[in-house]
């Protein structure tokens, strides 16, 4: 453990969770009227909006692919989103990296060959951050894409795992992210557990890695259920209103 912070006390983490617990997740769809599809997620203290525009004509024209749609993703943290300085002068190196990997996640999920020569714009805006924003952003953007009607192979979810000392923990918050020994965000397609994103800071042994993946896949069932409930909510609500 780096520094002097004790991240696990009596088997409980700083915010009272056990090693394999997720934070509370709430998702709402269609929050931005002018977007093709949008979603808002509250993942613990993370607050993120994702919106989708398109498919539309790819501009500038040289970016277009005549056989497939291109996915252009922009992940950005609001200047007020964290206690450190973020986003004061547009995209920094971290934002560019996350935009790239997030875009690649969705390039593998969207059926791009149905819209040749077009672009799909995906915007992920972090309003408040508390660790694990790229995972929350991907989970939120997947819901926004589904709500926009863009055809996808599956609905991906993403969550991070890490380790403190020898304990593997799930869904790291900001303090754990900064002081833990490893942090591994993973994005997965739930149908066949296909991995579409895997990054890692620090190091894990083979045993720890498989423990972490087990925790992630187990928690993925909960996250997928939350995504599903959020997508169906407007339809279920209007049906109930008519019945009542």
């Amino acid at each position, binding site marked *: 453990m780096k520094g002097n912070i004790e991240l696990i006390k009596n088997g409980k983490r700083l915010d009272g969770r056990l090693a394999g617990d997720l934070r509370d997740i709430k998702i709402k769809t269609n929050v931005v009227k002018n977007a093709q599809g949008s979603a808002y997620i509250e993942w613990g203290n993370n607050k993120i909006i994702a919106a989708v525009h398109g498919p539309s*004509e790819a501009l500038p024209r040289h970016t277009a692919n005549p056989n497939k749609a291109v996915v252009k993703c922009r992940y950005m943290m609001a200047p007020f989103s964290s206690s450190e300085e973020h986003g004061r002068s547009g995209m920094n190196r971290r934002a560019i990296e996350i935009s790239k990997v997030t875009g690649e996640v969705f390039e593998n999920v969207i059926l791009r060959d149905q819209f040749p020569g077009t672009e799909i714009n995906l915007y992920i805006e972090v309003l408040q951050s508390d660790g694990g924003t790229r995972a929350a952003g991907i989970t939120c953007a997947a819901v926004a894409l589904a709500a926009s*009607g*863009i055809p996808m192979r599956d609905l991906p979810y993403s969550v991070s795992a890490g380790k403190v000392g020898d304990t593997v923990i799930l869904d790291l918050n900001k303090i754990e992210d900064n002081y833990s020994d490893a942090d591994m965000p993973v994005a997965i397609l739930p149908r066949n557990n296909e991995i579409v994103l895997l990054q890692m800071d620090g190091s894990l042994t083979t045993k720890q890695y498989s423990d972490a993946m087990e925790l992630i896949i187990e928690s993925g069932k909960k996250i997928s259920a939350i*995504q599903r409930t959020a997508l169906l909510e407007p*339809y279920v609500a209007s049906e109930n209103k008519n019945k009542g």
Partner: protein
Amino acid sequence: MRKIVIPGELIDEKPLRILDSIVENNKTYSTIMGLYDDEKKSLIPLEGLWYPNRDDQVIGIIEESKLNTETVILNAPYKGLIISKYSEGKMASGDFIEASVKELDKTGTVILTRPRTLRGGKIIKIKPSKINRLLGKNNTMIRQISEGTGTRIIPGLNGMIWLNDGNIDLAIDAINTVCKEAHTSGLTERIGNMLKSTKSTTIITEEKVEEEMI
């Protein structure tokens, strides 16, 4: 039995050829949010995009008028194009038109044919996946709204709708209600009641005004 499915959800254990679905390992999965009917084996999209097909009737707005061609804004990933040999007379930018799709060419432009300028009126955009519900079986729904409000309504499959004359605001309200509740049953009846009740209230207020004036 109808159920709502989301992208990646299993819709059948057998490989089926349904629009908006994929087959993997001899099983069929949905790629969109939709209503799946087990008996009819049909998947109706709840959210979806319009993809140009031959002979689709569309509504558009002229973006730019050049010497021989006009480009058209459609509610779609692709732009429309009218070539002068398919059109009669000149159109100015900003004109509303009704046309049918001739083809989608390799460069990603929708070639339109038989254009007709629509004079005056208003254009609204709705989700293209809701157009079929708005038309209804044998166009019953759209006819009901049109007759109930006295509005001329021309829907385009691309999700743009042209309205003129009559009570346009009420017609737009009705169309929005249809879009919001497209997946529910008994919608035609509810829209009928909505149009009737609004009509009766307007008559009452008119009478009141007359009484007050006397």
